[in-house]
């Protein structure tokens, strides 16, 4: 007990070495703490608890997002390119013939209302992709916090395929 008292006094004067401080920590973590030292036990327990505190969210996504930004650009331009080609195809198909129909996926669609809705839907999706997809690039901070745009692109893509599938079934 005398030895611990000595080290404790040195500790509070900030004269202990790291080795002596480790000795104190071990003593206070043991079951042999004397009654006279009991009040200091919580001090060392508090330090020990803080030692195991970790950052809530690991920060590795900072690096990951560098790659994701590139992927996001590629995906965004790919989808906008596909959509632009599709709209152009619909546009070109119609005036070439002097009739009121369009070709969608090799099928002749004569219902102008359906064709218009189909084109509008595609454009809306592209608009959403651009709106959601480009906004995170304004700053890395937003990219870091929000990986949703990638999810939305995938969801939109799935929805487009579903609409086309339904259309094929109906026809």
């Amino acid at each position: 007990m005398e030895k611990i008292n000595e080290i404790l006094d040195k500790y509070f004067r900030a004269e202990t070495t790291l080795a002596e401080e480790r000795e104190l920590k071990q003593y206070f973590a043991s079951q042999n703490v004397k009654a006279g030292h009991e009040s200091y036990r919580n001090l060392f327990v508090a330090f020990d608890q803080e030692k195991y505190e970790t950052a809530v969210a690991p920060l590795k996504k900072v690096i990951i997002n560098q790659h994701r930004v590139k992927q996001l650009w590629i995906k965004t331009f790919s989808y906008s390119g596909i959509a632009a080609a599709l709209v152009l195809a619909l546009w070109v198909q119609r005036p070439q013939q002097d009739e009121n129909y369009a070709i969608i996926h090799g099928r002749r669609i004569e219902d102008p209302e359906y064709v218009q809705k189909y084109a509008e839907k595609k454009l809306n999706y592209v608009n959403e992709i651009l709106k959601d997809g480009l906004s995170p690039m304004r700053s890395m901070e937003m990219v870091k916090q929000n990986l949703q745009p990638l999810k939305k692109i995938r969801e939109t893509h799935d929805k487009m395929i579903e609409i086309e599938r339904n259309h094929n079934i109906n026809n």
Partner: protein
Amino acid sequence: MDPKQFNTQILSLSDRLFRLAKSILRNAEAAQDAVQDLNLKLWEKRSALDEIENMPAFTMKSMRNLCLDTIRQQREEDELPVEIEFTEPNPYQQTEQKDLVKRIRNMIDDLPELQRTVIRMRDVEGMELSEIADITSLSENAVTVNLSRARQKIREKIIYEQNRVEETVWKR
């Protein structure tokens, strides 16, 4: 510095940086943001990081400076004093702080910024006085003085708490 080196040398220090930021800012969420900010800043300047000799000391120093800037900005916005001295907890706080360990952690949080930073660097992180001096831009002697003051204050508060508990028991 390439992404792999960045992961190994800087992101691996995140927990340590978080604890330092939390100690200075006294808020886990703000500390998390501060660590994210620092990592982004370091990532942007990664090409210059190869010249740093002691990366842990450099990042800890940068973290402390960033936190102190945050506090300064907050003070300007809120016009509130940075340091809040220890005051007697009200009955609500007393109920909330039943946990003795939690009370000690609050005692440390109530210390002035430099003292709580130094005591945690030493007693939580187990850092050498020379390392702490490097990070805080103080002399080793000044670190020892601050560490001693911090530990003495905690000791006084622990004794005060102990006496109060004993008085309460005697009154019963």
